[in-house]
C-alpha cells in the first residue's frame, strides 16, 4: 500500500493540490479531500472496463483493434494527407503534450485550437481589448471581503472553489473566514451557489451587458434614468455599485453564464472595464472560472510558442489567428478541414450539431482515456494514460499558477502518455523511423 499526499486533482481549473491518494496493487483504493467529481475521476482510473485499452482503426466501417504501431502509422497518414487538418482538444492533458501538439500543428500546417474556443474564448477576446485585472487565488483568500460570482455556479462546476479560495477559508487579513466576507451571486437562475450567497441578484437572460453598463455608469458618477435595468431595480444597482466601491478588496469571478450567452466577449469586455473603473475607488480584481484543469495551460503554451492563445492556423508556415475564422467550430461549420486529431476532449458531445456533421464526414483520430461519443465516430482511436494520475506533467490553474502533476499509479499495460503518442505521430509525419514498437510506458 502506498499513500501519496499533495496530489493534484486533474479535473477542473481549481487544480486542488492537497489530495491524498492510497494505492494498492496499482489500484486507487482511497481518495481524500477531493470533491465528488475529482474522487470519481481518481477512482474511475481503476475501472479498466470503462477505459480505452487497445488502439483501434476503422476498417470497412467498423473500429477494429490493431497494434499501436499500426494506429500511429494510420494517424500519421491521415494527417499527412490532409490539406487542412484540425488539431483540437488539449485541455485535459499536460503542457508537455501541448508543446508537442504545437510542433505537430506547425509541421502539418494545420489549425490548432483547444476547448477555450467553447468556454472562455470570449474572455480571451475581451482581454485583447480590455486587459485583465486579476490576481492569484491566494490573494482572494487572504484579502477579499467582497466576492461576486457572475454567471458562474462553482457549487457545480468547481466544487471546492468556495472552500479553498473564496468564501470559506481563513486568510491573513480575513481571520474569521466567511464572517469577514460577503458573497453576491448574479445569475439568471437561483443556482446552488446563489442559495448560499448573502445576496442573489437575478438578471434577465441576455441582459447582463446592460446591467454592467448601468453599474459602470453609476460607479463613474453618472445617474441612472431607468427604473430598472435587466430586471434589477435602480436602487439595487446603486446599492451594488456602492458596495463594490466600498469593498477593501473585491473580486468578480465570472463563468460561462457571461461568455456563452448573448453578448459573449462584450459582456466580459464590459465587466473587465467595470473592474478597471472600480480601481479608481478601491482594489478590485476579476477572474475567469476556467473549466478544464489545464485549459489555461494550453493558452499559455500556445502564446509563448506561437504568440496567440488559441485558434491558430499554421497553414502558411507561421501563426495566423482570428477567432471567428480560425476557431474549431467555424472551421468545421464552413467545411474547411479535411482531417482532424482530437485529443483529451469530446467535441461530439459538446459541439453543436452543425459542427459535428462535418467532423463525422472527415477522417479523424481520437486520443482519449475512455470511450466517448467522439471515439465512437473516430477512424483511429488511441488509448492514453491519465495525466495527473498515471503520468507527470505541468498544468496551469485558473489563475495561471503552474503546478506539477503527480503520478500515483502505472497506466494500463501498453498504454502510453499523450506526449509519447504525439511524439510518435510527429516522428512518422516527418518520415522518421518508427520509434521502438515496444510500448515504452510513460514515465
Amino acid at each position, binding site marked *: 500500500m502506498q499513500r501519496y499526499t499533495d496530489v493534484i486533482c486533474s479535473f477542473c481549473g481549481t487544480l486542488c493540490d492537497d489530495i491524498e491518494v492510497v494505492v494498492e496493487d496499482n489500484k486507487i483504493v482511497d481518495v481524500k479531500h477531493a470533491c465528488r467529481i475529482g474522487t470519481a475521476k481518481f477512482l474511475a482510473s481503476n475501472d479498466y472496463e470503462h477505459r480505452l485499452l487497445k488502439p483501434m482503426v476503422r476498417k470497412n466501417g467498423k473500429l477494429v483493434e490493431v497494434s499501436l504501431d499500426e494506429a500511429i502509422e494510420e494517424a500519421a497518414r491521415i494527417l499527412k494527407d490532409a490539406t*487542412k487538418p484540425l488539431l483540437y482538444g488539449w485541455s485535459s492533458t499536460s503542457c508537455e503534450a501541448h508543446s508537442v501538439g504545437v510542433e505537430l500543428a506547425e509541421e502539418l500546417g*494545420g489549425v490548432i485550437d483547444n476547448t477555450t474556443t467553447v468556454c472562455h474564448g470570449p474572455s480571451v*477576446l475581451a482581454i485583447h481589448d480590455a486587459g485583465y485585472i486579476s490576481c492569484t487565488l491566494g490573494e482572494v483568500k487572504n484579502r477579499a471581503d467582497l466576492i461576486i460570482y457572475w454567471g458562474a455556479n462553482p457549487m457545480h462546476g468547481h466544487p471546492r472553489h468556495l472552500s479553498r479560495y473564496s468564501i470559506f477559508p481563513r486568510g491573513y487579513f480575513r481571520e474569521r473566514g466567511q464572517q469577514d466576507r460577503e458573497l453576491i451571486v448574479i445569475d439568471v437562475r437561483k443556482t446552488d451557489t446563489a442559495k448560499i450567497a448573502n445576496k442573489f441578484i437575478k438578471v434577465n437572460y441576455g441582459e447582463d451587458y446592460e446591467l454592467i*453598463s448601468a453599474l459602470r*455608469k453609476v460607479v463613474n458618477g453618472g445617474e441612472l434614468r431607468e427604473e430598472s*435595468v435587466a430586471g434589477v431595480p435602480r436602487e439595487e444597482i446603486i446599492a451594488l455599485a456602492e458596495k463594490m466601491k466600498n469593498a477593501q478588496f473585491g473580486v468578480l469571478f465570472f463563468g460561462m453564464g457571461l461568455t456563452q450567452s448573448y453578448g459573449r466577449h*462584450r459582456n466580459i469586455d464590459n465587466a473587465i472595464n467595470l473592474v478597471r473603473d472600480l480601481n479608481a475607488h478601491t482594489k478590485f480584481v476579476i477572474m475567469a472560472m476556467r473549466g478544464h484543469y489545464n485549459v489555461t495551460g494550453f493558452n499559455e503554451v500556445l502564446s509563448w510558442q506561437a504568440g496567440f492563445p488559441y485558434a491558430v492556423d*499554421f497553414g502558411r508556415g507561421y501563426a495566423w489567428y482570428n477567432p471567428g475564422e480560425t476557431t474549431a467550430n467555424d472551421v468545421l461549420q464552413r467545411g474547411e478541414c479535411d482531417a482532424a486529431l482530437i485529443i483529451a476532449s469530446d467535441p461530439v458531445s459538446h459541439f453543436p450539431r452543425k459542427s459535428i456533421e462535418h467532423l463525422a464526414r472527415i477522417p479523424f483520430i481520437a486520443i482519449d482515456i475512455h470511450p466517448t461519443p467522439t471515439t465512437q465516430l473516430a477512424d483511429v482511436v488511441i488509448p492514453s494514460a491519465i495525466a495527473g494520475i498515471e503520468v507527470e506533467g505541468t498544468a496551469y490553474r485558473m489563475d495561471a499558477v503552474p503546478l506539477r502533476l503527480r503520478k500515483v499509479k502505472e497506466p494500463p499495460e501498453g498504454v502510453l502518455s499523450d506526449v509519447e503518442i504525439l511524439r510518435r505521430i510527429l516522428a512518422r509525419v516527418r518520415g522518421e523511423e518508427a520509434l521502438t514498437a515496444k510500448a515504452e510506458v510513460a514515465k
Partner: protein
Amino acid sequence: MKEVVLTPKEQPSYGLIAECISCDVFAGKSIDEIKALPVYYGNKQGELGDFFEISGEVASSAEEQRIVIAGDVPKTRWIGKEMSAGEIVVKGSAEMYVGAWMRGGKIIVEGNVGAFSGMLMQGGELYVKGNAGDYLGCSYRGEWRGMRGGTIIVEGNAGMEVGQNLNGGRIFVKGSVESFAGVRMKKGLLVVGSATDRVGAQMVGGTIVVLGNVLRLLPSFDPAGEVENPSVADESFEGVFNKYTGDHAERHAKGVLYVRKE
C-alpha cells in the same frame, strides 16, 4: 483604365487566400505573371491561374488598373488587401477580409462580403451591393487603433460589431445591423438604416446616425434633446432626430448618437 478579368473556376473548400488580387500587385505584370501569383489554401500554395481563368489588359500603374471577378467567389478571402489605387469589381459574392488594410482605390462587390471586410481600412472605398458579414470595417483583435480612413457603403444589411474600434473614415449601412454597431468607437462616422441593440457600446467619440429604428438603447446613453436635420462633417441627415451622448459607462465619453424620430 485597363481591365483584367478573373473568371472563377472551382473554389477550394479550405478557403482561398488570394491577397494578390489587388491592382497594386497586378499593375506592370504580364498575364502569365498574374496567373503565376501565389495563392494559399490550407497548407498548400497554388497559383492564381489554378482558380481563375485570367485574361485582359494589364496597366502599368495601379491607378489605371481595373480587375473584374466575373462571378461568385464564396471561398476567396483577402481580395484587395492593402490596395492603394485602381478598381476591383466582384460580380458576385466574396468571402472574408475584402479590402482589409485598403489605402486607396475602389472595390465594388455586387453580391455579399464575408466577415472582417474593410478591416483596418485607411482610405479608398468599399462598396457592397448585397450584405456584409460581421465585423464590417473592424479593427484586428486587440488593436485599439481601428479603421482610420476611407468609406464603406453597404446597400443591404451587416452583422455584428460594424465599425468596431472605428478611428476615422465613414461607414454607411443602408439596411439593418446586428448588435454592437460602433462598439469602442473613437472617431469617424457610422450611419445605419436600423439597429437592434447595444449601438455605440463603449464608444468614447465619433458619431453614429440611425436612420430608422433602434430596438433598444443602452442605459448608459443620455438623451440630449432633438435635432432637426443634423449634419456631421459634410454629411447632413434629413428629419428630426433624438440626440444621445455616450457611452457614459466610459468616463469622459464624447460619442454622439442620433436616432431618427418615427
